[in-house]
């Protein structure tokens, strides 16, 4: 699910299978964001690194399967079963 620095936010978990439930379909990307914030981010500082103005911080790349979420409608993307979501930030080493 996450890679490149960001896995620190999630206790070092790199790939995780999530089940997001909601009363009415479709399930949108913004529902996934809420689900992650509520269930996987434990402290406030990590929250600030990940979220800004109720969406993913602009410094973080969100990739839906093999495509930048900017090309997929961002928060309004309709999640499909089996979608692979990758979060990545700039890496700082060289």
């Amino acid at each position, binding site marked *: 699910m996450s890679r490149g620095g960001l896995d620190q936010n999630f206790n070092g978990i790199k790939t995780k299978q999530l089940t997001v439930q909601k009363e009415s379909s479709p399930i949108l990307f913004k529902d996934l964001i809420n689900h992650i914030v509520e269930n996987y981010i434990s402290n406030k500082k990590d929250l600030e*690194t990940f979220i800004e103005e109720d969406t993913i*911080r602009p410094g973080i790349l969100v990739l839906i399967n093999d495509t*930048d979420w900017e090309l997929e409608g961002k928060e309004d993307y309709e999640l499909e079963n089996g979608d692979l979501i990758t979060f*990545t930030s700039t890496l700082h080493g*060289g």
Partner: protein
Amino acid sequence: AANRESSFSLEEYRRYGRQMTVPEVGISGQVMLKKSKILVVGAGGLGCPALLYLTGAGVGKIGIVDNDVVDTSNLHRQVLHTSENVGMLKCDSAKKYLNSLNPHVEIVTFPKRLSNDNIFNVFLSDKWDLILDCTDAPLTRYLINDAAVICGLTIVSASGVRADGQLAILNFQNFGPCYRCFYPKPPPPNSVLSCQDGGVIGPAIGVMGVLMASEAIKVICGSYTRENFKPFLNLYSAYPQQSLRTFKMRSKVPNCQVCSIDNDKRIITRSTIESNELNYSEWCGKVSYDVL
């Protein structure tokens, strides 16, 4: 200089023959390589392998920017330097070896740390065809990106930490997206994203440097054109299985602060940089900083 003429000596034919027979390079590609000038910023974990393969491939002129000296802790991954060269400037250590690898390549060094004050001098010191960003400090990436966009230069950019890496071609022919299009905002200072020292496995960062050399050859030989170039990001991971994933990325962002087509949106300019209005301060160890 004589070594950038378009004809080859017999020795050069022998040296590059195996590479010229590959259709994607060909004799015409070899000529383009010989005529090209590439500026490599950073002679560390990424720069070492990139420099080795670009020098081997017969790039005409290579500039190396690095003000650091070789330290023992570098040597597990910065394989172009040796234990005997500990304490020497990395750009000098690199130049010495590269000259003996391929005397046809002109190597020039810039033993300085890029800053608001000197980056345009360095980037405009010659007609560079391409910048390789092999640096290890995120804010330097913004500085390099901004100056390259303003100078109209394409960047092959990579980075890595622990066992992972990223690679992208930025500002391709002033037409592809830039680093700020991808990352408009640096992570907050002292966050887990910025200051950790995660360590790094030698061949994991090494592979990124070699991939950069391949991309540089592809850019110089004209494999990418405005017609076929699609913005992308590569993610490499050494574990559990070595993988290199390719992501289709956004185009140039219309309101990008440095590369926007719209003049009014482009608030980062040579003068805002050189006047120090824009402060690319140290990434870590400061509670606040001021970067656009």
